[in-house]
């Protein structure tokens, strides 16, 4: 058993959540709280973070500290990363879960919005992972887990700006994993499909492809435990995306999704 998961069982796991109020982060934190983990919760607004901290403590967390920071402020990211690391005297797991789901048609018209979408969905999580890397590397253990998306696997008309940002992130994590392999640090790329969260609340939900955050969280806990590199969650997205990426271009161009 690896160090990170052993710690999880002992209830001494130290976890930082970036974008702590995202639906996936909350569900994952709750799953780890039951094991008695300690948390530092990073996000933009204090009030929901405080509410989450109280919730995690009732669920069994030994500690849940709140750290208010705007992750869109790219210059501040190294300080944010170091602060989270210091707060618990080191980390066993960093989950980077912030992001937005922008409206593609708006981004096609609005260059500022398009830039912001790329910054928050690619540059910010990438730089944050980069800032955390030497800290984990020094400790020669632990997990950097980042939520990307199945949307990053092939550019599609309906969301190619978001998809490109996530695609960039996927490639970035691939390289970071290569770099950290020697030090034994796990880099986990989490690629969810459709998840029912506040981020997707405006979409028509339901149907077999939609998953609850709980289900995704269970998969994440298991992927951390098994030290996986890439997680499609729920599992059937691995198959769907294998097909989508293999579709010959002439056929692909006739689809609208």
């Amino acid at each position, binding site marked *: 058993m690896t160090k990170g998961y052993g710690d999880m069982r002992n209830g001494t796991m130290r976890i930082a959540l970036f974008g702590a109020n995202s639906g996936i982060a909350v569900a994952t934190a*709750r799953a780890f709280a039951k094991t008695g983990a300690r948390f530092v919760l990073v996000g933009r607004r204090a009030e929901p973070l405080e*509410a989450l901290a109280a919730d995690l403590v*009732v*669920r069994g967390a030994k500690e849940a500290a709140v750290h208010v920071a705007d992750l869109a402020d790219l210059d501040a990211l190294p300080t944010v990363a170091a602060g989270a690391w210091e707060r618990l005297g080191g980390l066993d797991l960093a989950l980077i879960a912030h992001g937005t789901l922008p409206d593609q048609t708006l981004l096609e018209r609005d260059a500022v919005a398009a830039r912001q979408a790329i910054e928050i969905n690619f540059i910010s999580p990438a730089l944050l992972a980069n800032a955390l890397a030497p800290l984990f590397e020094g400790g020669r253990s632990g997990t950097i887990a980042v939520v990307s998306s199945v949307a990053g696997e092939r550019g599609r008309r309906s969301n190619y700006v978001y998809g490109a940002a996530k695609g960039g992130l996927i490639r970035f994590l691939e390289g970071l994993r290569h770099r950290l392999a020697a030090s034994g640090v796990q880099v986990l790329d989490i690629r969810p499909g459709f998840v029912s969260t506040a981020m997707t609340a405006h979409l028509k939900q339901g149907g077999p492809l939609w998953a609850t955050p*709980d289900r995704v969280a269970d998969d994440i806990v298991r992927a951390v435990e098994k030290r996986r590199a890439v997680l499609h969650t729920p599992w059937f997205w691995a198959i769907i995306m294998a097909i989508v990426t293999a579709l010959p271009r002439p056929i692909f161009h006739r689809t609208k999704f």
Partner: protein
Amino acid sequence: MTDIRDAWTTEVASWGGVARPRHLVLRPGTRAEARAIVADDSRLPLLAHGCGRSYGDVALNPEGRLVQMTGLDRFIAFDRDTGLLTCEAGVRLADILDAVCRPEPDGGGWFLPVSPGTRFVTVAGAIANDVHGKNHHGFGTFGRHVAAIELARSDGSVETITPESHPDLFAATIGGLGLTGLILSATIRLRRVAGTALEAEDIRFDDLDAFFALADGSEAWEYTAAWIDCLATGTATGRGIFSRARHAPGRAAVPPALRPRKAVPLTPPVSLVGGLSLKAFNALYWRKLGLRERVLKTGSYEPVFYPLDAIGSWNRLYGPKGFYQFQCVVPPGADGRAAIAEMLRVIAQSGQGSMLAVLKTFGDLPSPGLLSFPKPGITLALDFPNRGPETLALLARLEAVTIEAEGRIYPAKDSCMSAASFTRGYPAKADFQRWIDPAFSSAFARRVGLIGEGSRA
């Protein structure tokens, strides 16, 4: 928030699936958002919706706004010394069991004081229907264990109400069917048990008299209820299996999984619960104990409390037309017993069996709510596949027998009782009406005359 045009296309079904009206569904994620919804002076009436485990229409508000509360699922505080748990309105009993009611090394721990037959209900839903469990004779209703409620009203107020601070509004809100305002959070008193596992005994009995004898003789058992074979006729009328259980000191049981392992993936085009399958089910269940008269087991509480939770969305088995549930309580004593016997006769005669007929005696602990359903006596619950007019006729007969016996029908399960039956069954109706928040409404409230049709445009 949701686009109105999309929202209007949202059909929300009751658990029984008989009604699926359209609503404007709002999904607050925080208490602040929920407050803002209540304070927003829209002309559309409001109603909260929890897990939608009510069979009939208490959680429906056709053509109105429906506030889906399951996004408010945070725990706020738990005092491990007193057992006082404060949480948001949409926290489910399953979440409390899973996160808080975990066995301690000695096998004991904190436990839900009262739980209905499914753990997939919200705390606020349990308050609004003042639900009961198999331990009613010892612990009364859920509302007895509520210490405080944070309630938002459409006049813009948000107050924490307790039995001391606001006795009248508190009594109206417990069992208040969601009509007194929006519950944002609540504090409930968990109880200490010496073992989270149960010692459970199933006993076969041959008729109603035997049931009452067993119920009377089971004072030492905390949880009791009986399953009745409602297809049995003649001298076998009222035969069934009596189940009783109590906590096994020092024995631990871990909480059941949060997601059912099996689920019914979609609604079949026709009901799978029909004459033949019902007969088979009842016959099988009756033989569940094999040749033995009684079976004693110690183990998890899940099969005892939540047999139906093992299969997700089991209500879909009834097909697109759905099913009706009927639950009544009639006073103790000879008249009540006669009324139950009469109902079982009517059902067997109609040939419209029920998969699950449950009989239980309520104790005399008073319920704190003005409209709480439980009162001392005998309660019978059954469900019937929806076969149209013949099913409605049967339900009307059962309703008549109930009211005749000075009993009443449980709103959480009801889809058809008349305004007159409600008024006779719930003498505190007029007292209650003073506390209805004018912005709130429900299909049930309009049907039984709690709110006049068109009182709010």
